């Protein structure tokens, strides 16, 4: 045993020494914090080669966990949060302004994505992907008639034990509030409580599984009849499983935007702008959107993708009807009210 330990130690030392020589030193590093599986890795490699820099790439799985890490003292140059988190970061003065003169690919950005309420003059963000939330369903198990129930189909006892809910506070309350016909940005305590009862009732009668990214693989093999899912993930599922359909209830749904923001910590603003500009160029935006399945805000790439790989896939698109809403910033009190209810839903 002792000898074995010695051999292992030698091995470890040699490999440490080797790794010391192998690394190349770069003049610049850029720390990027993005959603998991939200980029074509080759695009990142291409940027590193072209700009002779090192991209330290980290991923997160929710806006809230990104925010927690940021507050926890981790330093990043570029983050890719969603609109309500961007709004919060702006309000808490954690972002730097975008230098649009360096974003030469601005002309390709879809005009309906820009000038949103949370940042009317686009001072702080550059759009990346956007989309909706809907229900992914297995056509062999779910009838079109049932889908006419809208979000309420997620409480149809026929599908007991056979549905995935999205494991996030905002998305679950969105489903419940929309099913009840309220705004998903309501601050009315009675309405929120009603939505809470809706979710509790659903947990009791439907035995749903709360999951996030796990549902993507699960639905590719039709594990359950239905799942609440983001449109881009749904497009990726539909590419692989022809039995899957994507449906957005008439009662309205969430319209979301993810975009690049630059933190106050960022020192090399020019490199950061180059990175963002590189990511949204026609060619790279196309590679990214083909890789992840989300609708890109680059019009040229979006057109090419929807006429090519994603032809006939309705999840690769956007709906911005009257009932569809964008998440709004919540004050601390409202946020706490939602959080407390959500903790109770999860603790059942």
């Amino acid at each position, binding site marked *: *045993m002792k000898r074995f330990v010695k051999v292992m130690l030698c091995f470890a030392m040699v490999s440490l020494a080797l790794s010391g020589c192998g690394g190349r030193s770069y003049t610049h590093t850029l720390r990027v914090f993005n959603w998991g599986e939200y980029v074509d890795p080759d695009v990142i490699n291409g940027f590193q080669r072209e700009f002779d820099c090192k991209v330290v790439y980290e991923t997160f799985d929710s806006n809230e966990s990104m925010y927690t890490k940021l507050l926890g003292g981790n330093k990043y140059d570029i983050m890719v949060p969603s609109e309500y988190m961007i709004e919060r970061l702006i309000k808490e003065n954690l972002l730097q302004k975008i230098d649009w003169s360096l974003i030469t690919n601005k002309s390709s950005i879809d005009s309906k994505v820009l000038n949103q309420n949370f940042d009317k003059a686009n001072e702080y963000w550059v759009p990346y992907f956007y989309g909706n939330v809907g229900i992914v369903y297995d056509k062999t198990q779910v009838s079109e008639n049932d889908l006419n129930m809208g979000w309420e189909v997620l409480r149809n006892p026929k599908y007991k034990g056979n549905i995935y809910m999205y494991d*996030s506070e905002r998305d679950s309350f969105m489903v419940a509030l929309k099913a009840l016909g309220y705004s998903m940005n309501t601050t009315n305590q009675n309405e929120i409580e009603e939505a809470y009862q809706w979710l509790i009732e659903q*947990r009791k009668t439907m035995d749903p599984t709360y999951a996030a990214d796990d549902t993507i693989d699960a639905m590719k*093999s039709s594990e359950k009849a239905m799942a609440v899912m983001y449109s881009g993930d749904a497009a990726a599922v539909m590419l692989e499983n022809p039995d899957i359909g994507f449906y957005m209830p008439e009662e309205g749904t969430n319209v979301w935007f993810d975009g690049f923001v630059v933190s106050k910590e960022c020192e090399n603003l020019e490199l950061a702008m180059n990175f963002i500009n590189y990511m949204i160029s026609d060619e790279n935006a196309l590679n990214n959107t083909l890789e992840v399945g989300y609708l890109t805000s680059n019009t040229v790439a979006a057109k090419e993708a929807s006429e090519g790989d994603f032809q006939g896939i309705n999840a690769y698109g956007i709906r911005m009807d009257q009932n569809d809403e964008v998440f709004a910033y919540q004050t601390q009190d409202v946020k706490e009210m939602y959080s407390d209810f959500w903790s109770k839903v*999860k603790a059942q």
Partner: protein
Amino acid sequence: MKQYKKLVSPYCFWLFALTIIPMMLIAFYAFTSKGTEITTFQFTLDNFFKFMDPIFLSVLMRSLVLGVLTTAICFLIGYPIAYMIAKCKENTQTILILLITIPTWINLLMRTYAWMSILSNNGIINNLLQSIGLGRVHMMYTDFAVVIGMVYNFLPFMILPIHTSLTNMDKSLTEASMDLGASRIQTFFKVTFRLSLSGVLTGITMVFLPAISAFVIPKMLGGGQYSLIGNFIEQQFITVGNWHFGSAVSLVLAVIVIVLMALIYRVEKRTNVSNEDEEGGNKRYGKRKKIRKGSMH
């Protein structure tokens, strides 16, 4: 011995920086409210009152029940394995113990992912069941899946200390028991098992403690709707962002763990005293030392 005392100081520093200070921060957060800024806090007990909600207490209860269940299953599987290994030739023992430890060289996440693909609706077991004409069994996202995952991951920590205490046992004691007319079964329960109790208690501690605070395994095999106290704390920190409430729950869990540790320590002390009566006092020290060494594995 005295000249070695200074060698303890790095450990004290380590303990202070990585255990005492974080614990104090948790306690600080648990008794305060309002934001994460030090400048705006207020002292309060609200976080603890909030946890008194029956829904939240049921989460704690569920964790304790599952922890006990996991520990019991680990013991029922682990003891016979440890016993059988201890009965083998010394060379075989080394190989068998190596086989027990090898899975722990692989990352916990990887091992749990493997279980996901074994247990899922279109996984290995269900495909097998279907190919021989039996229907699918729903296993993922149930208590069953979580307990299997925890038993699988924590079993080595039960086997190793028990094995150590069994091999360090003085064989002449069992021989004497047989000589004096006890049957094999009587010898096992009256001599062997009692002498291995300290190993059993170490095993129980090392399985029960991670089992009640586990959050990765229940999250992966139990799904997002499966809430144990570990998941609950994680959720308060990561998604809800209420560090004060999360800290309060952590503190409650820490107190429960400390109380349980104290109980186990007392039981261990008592069994050692009774062993001493049977074994003769001078044996005890050396044996206990060896067991501790084994449990560090």
